[in-house]
């Protein structure tokens, strides 16, 4: 039995072709059949067939759709491999569910039709930033922890190390997700992913071990370039931002387009690369999720730019409509849309893909949607903290 259960010969077990609500008639289905192996009245939980276990899992997944209770879905997948497979069949990626479930969710695109609401808290004394998913309509709440970043100043640049665990920022650990590196002037940034973008070929490392798992190089795969500059008004106007998403093709935002969806953190042997200890999830577009660098070469990378604020004569300030999600003025606040540089400006260039803004001391909201992932959105927002280009 595929659940790894102890086998039982009693006929309490139902015919495995039976699925709730769609029973087919077969000659053994009816109770009129003389069954020599009649069960005793005792039955054990190991008798529960996979289809029924699946029904129970669906119940768990539906009732625990929100954090913190969603942890039960993750726990369910930790029981054994076949339960994990079952869970992966039932759980939908954020693009369709609008929910984070497994850690890999932070690397997968957000929902298409809405903005996934998160917030970032900064701890100035430890130079650490915490990204949490918002769990209520409040601008900040306890939230579900997603990612943490720590600022590391170097002689010629600054790095923000991004990790799944705030207490573990080492690049060698399995929690390391990627980093943001700024240039000396704080005008240009590169986002690096610990893993190759989905669909990219794995780069061979020096070690020749294969052992059935893909070899990956030490994690420094550039996936986005961000630049800041003054606008035509110089320091009196809002700065201009541009994000070239090297790992997302421009076609991703067109009708029928798909964005690369990372579906696994590979488990590699301890010698070739730090263990990245997470598992694959199923994407609903199993054939299409391998868009990535090849598509970028063909279609060009997606380019995002910040929406130009309007000058409010009466209030004497630059204004953007954050729909209530940003409440304090700050030069760091921005909204990113698809830049019309990719082609003709159309309705898709009005849709906000990422917005970021201050709501309190050291607290900022971050709302993002497809085709960005939480990781990419977080990295872009971190650059807004760091850049020296400011507006008076």
């Amino acid at each position, binding site marked *: 039995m595929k659940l790894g259960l102890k086998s039982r010969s009693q006929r309490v077990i139902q015919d495995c072709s039976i699925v709730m609500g769609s*029973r087919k008639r077969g000659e053994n289905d*009816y109770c009129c059949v003389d069954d020599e192996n009649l069960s005793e009245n005792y039955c*054990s939980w190991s008798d529960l067939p996979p289809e029924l276990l699946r029904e129970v899992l669906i119940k768990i997944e539906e009732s625990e759709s929100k954090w*913190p209770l969603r942890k*039960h879905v993750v726990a369910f997948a930790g029981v054994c491999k076949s339960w994990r497979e079952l869970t992966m069949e039932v759980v939908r990626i954020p693009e369709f569910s609008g929910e984070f479930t497994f850690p890999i969710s932070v690397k997968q695109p957000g929902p298409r039709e809405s903005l996934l609401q998160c917030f970032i808290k900064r701890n100035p004394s430890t130079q650490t930033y915490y990204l949490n998913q918002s769990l209520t309509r409040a601008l900040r709440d306890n939230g579900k922890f997603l990612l943490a970043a720590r600022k590391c100043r170097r002689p010629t640049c600054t790095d923000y190390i991004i990790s*799944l665990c705030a207490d573990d920022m080492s690049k060698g650990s399995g929690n390391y997700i990627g980093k943001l590196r700024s240039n000396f002037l704080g005008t240009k940034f590169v986002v690096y992913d610990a893993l190759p973008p989905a669909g990219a070929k794995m780069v061979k490392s020096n070690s020749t071990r294969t052992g059935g798992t893909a070899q990956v190089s030490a994690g420094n795969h550039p996936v986005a370039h961000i630049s800041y500059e003054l606008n035509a008004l110089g320091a009196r106007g809002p700065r201009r931002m541009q994000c070239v998403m090297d790992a997302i093709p421009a076609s991703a935002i067109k009708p029928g387009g798909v964005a690369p969806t990372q579906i696994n953190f590979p*488990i590699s042997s301890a010698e070739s690369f730090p*263990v990245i200890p997470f*598992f694959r999830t199923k994407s609903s577009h199993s054939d299409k999720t391998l868009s990535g660098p090849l598509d970028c070469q063909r279609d060009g990378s997606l380019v995002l730019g910040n929406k130009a604020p309007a000058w409010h004569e009466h209030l004497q300030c630059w204004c953007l409509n954050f729909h209530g999600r940003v409440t304090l003025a700050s030069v760091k606040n921005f909204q990113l849309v698809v830049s019309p540089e990719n082609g003709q400006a159309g309705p898709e260039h009005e849709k906000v893909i990422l917005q970021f803004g201050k709501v309190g001391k050291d607290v900022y909201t971050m709302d993002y949607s497809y085709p960005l992932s939480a990781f990419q959105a977080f990295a872009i927002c971190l650059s807004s903290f760091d850049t020296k280009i400011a507006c008076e």
Partner: protein
Amino acid sequence: MSSPEEKTLILKSSDNEEFLVKESVAVQCITIKNLVEDGCDLDAIPLLNVDSKNLAWIIEFMEKYADSTSTDAEKKDFDTEFVKKPFNDVLGLILAANYLNFPALMDVMCDACANEMKLWSVEQVREKFHIQNDYTEEEEKAVRAENFWAFE
């Protein structure tokens, strides 16, 4: 005008106990409905995979749900009390509901099972379901890290 006298079926459990149930109530179980349509209901209908303990409960459930006068709120209250059974009995009812193809009962019992399982640790689940942990040591570390993130 009164309706024609309603047919009563005889349902026989695996331990040979017979129960009288109105046809309109019993056909909530699609298995029984199929048998009736096939004309297998002339004598007692033997339900070889359902013992009398479970059948009695199932009939109680069927009658509540067939009762057009009970409101949704009353059904919900009924469900809450109905599922207060030892966990192994919950299992028996899930298997019986599946065998009889009774969606409403299946729904309620799977809900009860899910609610119970949520309270267990991974080790308890493995013990209860007699499951061997087939993760390697490396994978087990990954599972722990994943749960650490989820429970943070």
